[in-house]
């Protein structure tokens, strides 16, 4: 770690002699920067005159690692980006590869992906709710939010065995079909959650202290939001109506009926209300999707060059076993070209851009991480405000360092 006195911030260190500024390093280890984010703030008393986020402490070289792995092997890497909503990362990545290959995914897989993606959005927003309110000082909602998130994690564990690094999508579908009891469990969760949301609102939304801490804090003007490239609730809180589920529908969002909540003033309170309403709309989407889910059907695409053969055939017949071994050891070739696919992740537009040179490994994989882009708004939101607002602002743009640093 660099000594903060030697750190040179681009733009220079313009402390005049005798100026009453203090440089405070809210270092990478900090209870409320949601991971290893370093924020260097210049303070005059309590007033923030300059705020510089320093990401990079969680950089693990995901994009470079992907250049040396087969397309299927990259899926576990994507789990670890936004580790609070891993399924969404998997989904965005496999959608990009499917676009590159021109693969068609069976409908049951698409519906299941939609349901799980919305569940994942709720899980991510629950963590945001818990940690944001906890940073502001209310320690109780965190426990309630995590209790409900446990139900979602149980659903994921039931499907694929993992709670955090699910790796459930495969190129062309899902890893396996969901077990029996999935529909009932999701249904139970939806009913439970509709009651829980009322509790969350009762505890926090009208509390004068919370309102006083968030109204007018961290205002982002709509023009600034668009020019910075913000997406997700950070953008919609400022009133700009851009939701990829409506603007460029993927999966089956165009067949479902839901609303996109928008804010008016672009302050933290508006973003809070937007995310709370998004959770409610997600439950609505899940209900509709459960009703439309096809009863039976394959969950993997029908392309023998790309997909592994079914296990029972691979274990019994020679031809399938050879194919299984070949595809696992050598991957599958892809057409030369490039593809970009993006989804409306819980934090914003999550996109994967893949350039293929015809081999079974990507030539280049670029991840458009929403948290990285949203983090740019932090200096604009905090300069001129008090130190306590820096924490509110970090919480309100909802960053996850796995995504920021990749």
């Amino acid at each position, binding site marked *: 770690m660099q000594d903060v006195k030697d750190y040179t911030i681009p733009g220079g260190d313009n402390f005049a002699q005798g100026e009453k500024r*203090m440089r*405070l390093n809210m270092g990478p280890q*900090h*209870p*409320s920067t949601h991971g290893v984010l370093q924020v260097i703030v210049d*303070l005059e008393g*309590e007033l923030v005159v300059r705020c510089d986020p320093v990401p990079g402490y969680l950089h693990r070289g995901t994009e470079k690692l992907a250049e040396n792995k087969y397309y299927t092997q990259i899926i576990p890497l994507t789990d670890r980006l936004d580790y609070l909503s891993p399924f969404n990362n998997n989904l965005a990545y496999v959608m990009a590869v499917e676009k590159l290959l021109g693969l068609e995914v069976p409908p049951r897989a698409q519906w299941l992906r939609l349901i799980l993606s919305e569940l994942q959005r709720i899980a991510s927003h629950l963590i945001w709710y818990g940690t944001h*309110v*906890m*940073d*502001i*000082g*209310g*320690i*109780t909602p965190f*426990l*309630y939010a995590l*209790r409900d998130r446990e139900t979602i994690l149980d659903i994921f564990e039931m499907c694929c065995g993992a709670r955090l690094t699910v790796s459930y999508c495969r190129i062309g579908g899902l890893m396996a079909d969901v077990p029996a009891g999935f529909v009932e469990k999701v249904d139970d969760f939806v009913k439970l959650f509709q009651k829980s949301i009322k509790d969350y609102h009762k*505890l*926090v939304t009208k*509390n004068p*202290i*919370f309102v*006083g*801490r968030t109204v007018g804090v961290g205002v982002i003007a709509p023009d600034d939001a668009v020019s910075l490239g913000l997406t997700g609730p950070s953008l919609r809180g400022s009133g700009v109506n851009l939701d990829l589920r409506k603007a460029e529908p993927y999966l089956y969002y165009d067949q479902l009926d839901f609303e996109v909540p928008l804010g008016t003033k672009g302050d933290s309170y508006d973003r809070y209300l937007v995310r709370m309403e998004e959770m409610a709309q997600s439950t609505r989407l899940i209900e509709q999707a459960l009703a439309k889910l096809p009863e039976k059907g394959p969950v993997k695409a029908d392309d023998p060059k790309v997909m592994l053969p079914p296990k029972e055939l691979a274990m019994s017949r020679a031809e399938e076993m050879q194919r299984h071994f070949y595809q696992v050891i050598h991957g599958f070739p892809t057409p030369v070209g490039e593809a970009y696919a993006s989804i409306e992740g819980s934090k914003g537009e999550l996109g994967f851009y893949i350039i293929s040179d015809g081999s079974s490994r990507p030539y280049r994989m670029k991840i458009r991480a929403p948290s990285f882009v949203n983090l740019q708004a932090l200096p604009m939101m905090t300069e001129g405000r*008090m*130190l*306590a*607002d820096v*924490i509110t602002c970090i919480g309100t743009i909802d960053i996850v360092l796995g995504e920021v640093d990749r």
Partner: protein
Amino acid sequence: MFSAAQATIGMANVFLDAVAAPENKVNAPAEPFIWFLQTFVTLFIIMNVVLVTMAYQTWAERKVLALAHQRYGPTRTGPFGLLQPIADAVKLLNKESITLKEADKSVFMFAPLVGFIPAVAAWAIIPWGDANNEGLLGGWLRPVIANINLGVLYLLALSSIGVYGIVMAGYSSGNKYSMLGSLRSTAQVVSYELTLGLGMMGVLLMAGSLNLNDIVLAQHNTIWYVIPQFFGFVVFGISGIAETNRSPFDLPEAESELVAGYMLEYGAMRFGMFYLAEYINMNTIAAITATLYFGGWAAPFPFLDFIPGPIWLIAKFSFFLFIYYWIRATLPRFRYDQLMGFCWKVLFPLAITNLAITAVIKLVGIYAGWWG
């Protein structure tokens, strides 16, 4: 360290006793030496009770918060987690205490004591029973350690000294976070001390005395002061929470912002001193609130007088402590400017208005003859 504190307090109290003893003391024996010994025994017993209670406040708080969070809190250390405070104490005693190179060593080491001792010393004047009685064991366990006529002034003075602990801790730590925390805390505590004092002025006007025992007796005969002095109670209660740096006024030690604020650089038992000082302060404010507004050791109705005084006092201040834990579980914390604005723009005018109205009513009452 505790016995040193106790001895110091004992000496101070005996001195105060001798200087400011009320005239209506019926049980002063002829020998000042016996009086001194009786004071010391009372001090020893009451202080031990208070310090153990304070340690178990930490347990009670953790349990209450946990139940608000739908979890259990400490359950493994002893039955119901009752040995948790002892486990914490043992851990704190065994840890290493680090002093930074940039720290001002003598001030750094002295600050926790300056924070802790006034908090404990405030218990010297809180009456556990009627101070005009002889007390138990033939006068050896008196209901109050020191029945001084300036009780309330002594309390306010001690809380003002307690501020120095915070100032010294933050300044001498050699760490910007601590300094920020202590700056915030100092301004907060000093401002809320003003409203604390003004809020309780109404009670003092009504009781006509600064002696805590007289205040309780005045309530025993008439009505608990929370009812006529409701706004004073609100001001005093809120200021009390702010004085002790509790949620929602715990910005100085806001964990998620300043990582423990002014206590940041303290390790081991020095941190323990601050930590315990906070709980003792909370106890003191709860007990004072109970004494000034809810009748202290007095029963609400005469037919309940058979229940001894200490039980009433414990019940009342436990109730207030529960309210403090409940508030901590529920409310987010104020931002610093909102906190100061709340004190000066809301509580301060309310306290002054309360005082003015009480004074006017009392004056009218004395002239009209119905103020007994």
